[in-house]
């Protein structure tokens, strides 16, 4: 308790500095870490070298002896990579107020478990047995946390959002700025249609079922915009009851986890291309980490499952464009508008909120800026190369190592989702919030499917080519 009080006081002090925001929010630390790695990689590339030695990643294998051989050959690199991540995330965690002595032991276990999963994904029979690393990470994590239990001392190392945001910044290095400019407007249009319809469905269903407006708005934003992050942003902006925010969180997490398994499964059964499936997942998943797990799973089918067209990266690229550019960046606007309505139109609560347009920037998911800067940097660095030179020189020395960093960061996150989801601790949801949210899920999934596979299918298919 004294520790929490100390943290609170430290945050109070840092709040006084206008620059404090840059060091006390994980969005900014994801930017510093992601862009820092990209900066070093680009500098080494420009000097004729590469960061690939430390960006070690498991290679395809058939027998366990191959794994042993890889570990013998690259053991030092894996140790160095652990040190790199431990220092980067450790500094970030310490700045956020997480004790480094608590973070490091937990992160060591996360790193080791992620390594096992990364290796598993490289098994040449993994696809045959449906052992996609994101799903295996999630499944094992859920099983362990809800049966054996996960000791609390591991919590500081399981920072899902910190890892996923860092991975998204690194992902920017794999998406040309021109592609974002080309695809962004379509993503925004598709996301706007689905977000408005989903929010409306949940909100009016909730009101119709007699639920409080603040709960309706919190549920609606959780389902329509950016999952748990949307729920807490709007919950705070409208002054929802604590248990209402808890209900929204529980519903989003449960449905998001269901969708991690369902969306790739249905997409696979329908033989959707990776670009189309990624767009559908980006439209109909509720949280970035959950959606990336689903999209990366589906991308893994390309080339290994007959009938799945498109490149592996297209699923993750389409997802990111749809979810991050199309939906996440608007959370501040949703929070501001709903805060204004709550302040001026809804019943009073005893707490008076101060609605302000500053909310739009204050709640903006800043890591998106890192994603865009990463994209711009790589676009600039690689613009002088023709396609052949890009494939021969840029990919192995610069793009592939950054992709390996990204895969590590995502694997840390996927593993942490399952391990931190303790279902028995969730708030009791109640039937009416469940019905209201589920109506929104149905609207969201159907509309997202129609827009991704019919209305804009040509567009998303081209993304995967």
């Amino acid at each position, binding site marked *: 308790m004294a520790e*929490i009080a100390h*943290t*609170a*006081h430290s*945050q*109070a002090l840092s*709040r006084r500095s206008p620059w404090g*925001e840059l060091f*006390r929010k*994980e*969005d*900014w630390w994801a930017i510093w870490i992601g862009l820092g790695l990209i900066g070093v990689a680009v500098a080494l590339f420009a000097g004729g070298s590469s960061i690939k030695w430390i960006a070690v990643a498991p290679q395809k294998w058939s027998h366990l002896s191959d794994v042993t051989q890889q570990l013998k050959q690259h053991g030092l690199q894996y140790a160095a990579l652990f040190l790199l991540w431990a220092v980067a995330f450790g500094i970030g965690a310490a700045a956020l*107020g997480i004790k480094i002595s608590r973070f490091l032991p937990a992160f060591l276990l996360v790193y080791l478990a992620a390594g096992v999963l990364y290796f598993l994904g490289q098994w040449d029979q993994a696809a045959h047995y449906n052992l996609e690393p994101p799903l295996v990470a999630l499944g094992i994590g859920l099983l362990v946390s809800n049966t054996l239990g996960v000791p609390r001392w591991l*919590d500081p190392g399981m*920072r*899902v*959002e910190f890892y996923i945001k860092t991975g998204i910044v690194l992902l920017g290095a794999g998406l040309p700025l021109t592609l974002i400019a080309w695809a962004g407007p379509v993503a925004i249009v598709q996301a706007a249609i689905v977000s408005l319809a989903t929010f409306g469905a949940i909100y009016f269903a909730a009101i119709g079922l007699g639920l409080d407006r603040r709960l309706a708005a919190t549920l609606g934003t959780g389902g329509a915009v950016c*999952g*748990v*992050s*949307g*729920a*807490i*942003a709007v*919950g*705070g*902006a409208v*002054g*929802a*009851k*604590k*248990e*209402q*925010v*808890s209900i929204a*969180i*529980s519903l989003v*997490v449960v449905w*998001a986890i269901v969708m991690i398994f369902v969306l790739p499964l249905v997409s696979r059964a329908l033989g959707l291309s990776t670009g189309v499936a990624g767009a559908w997942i980006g439209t109909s998943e*509720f*949280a970035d*980490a959950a959606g990336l797990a689903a999209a990366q799973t589906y991308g893994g089918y390309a080339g290994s499952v007959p009938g799945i067209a498109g490149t592996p990266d297209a699923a993750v690229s389409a997802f990111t464009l749809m979810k991050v550019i199309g939906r996440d960046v608007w*959370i*501040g606007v949703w929070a501001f508008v709903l*805060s204004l309505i709550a302040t001026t139109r809804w019943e009073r*609560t*005893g*707490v*008076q*909120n*101060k609605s302000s347009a500053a909310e739009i920037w*204050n*709640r*903006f*998911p*800043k890591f998106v800026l890192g994603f865009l800067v990463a994209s711009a940097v790589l676009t600039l660095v690689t613009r002088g190369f023709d396609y052949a030179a890009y494939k021969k020189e840029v990919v192995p020395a610069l793009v592939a190592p950054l992709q390996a960093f990204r895969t590590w960061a995502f694997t840390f996150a996927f593993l942490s989702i399952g391990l931190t*989801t*303790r279902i028995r*601790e969730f*708030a009791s949801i109640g039937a009416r919030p469940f019905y209201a949210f589920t109506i929104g899920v149905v609207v969201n999934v159907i509309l997202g499917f129609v827009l991704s596979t019919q209305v804009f299918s040509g567009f998303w298919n081209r993304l995967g080519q």
Partner: protein
Amino acid sequence: MRQTVSASCGGCKHFQNAAEQVEAALPGLSSLSSAYAAVRCDDGICAVHERYIAASSVCPAFEEGYAFA
């Protein structure tokens, strides 16, 4: 009666918004989001009203505590 900025909930002793406190009070939050995220701003939990509110909010039950605002 007009309340000043310094009397906002962020400076109230009933307001809990340290990230660890928020994550402990809202189970599942850290599974797919985070109390350290920019979208949360400085929102926290009011122990008097049992509400999740913005630090810039105001209410008559204000009692000076940590000065956030």
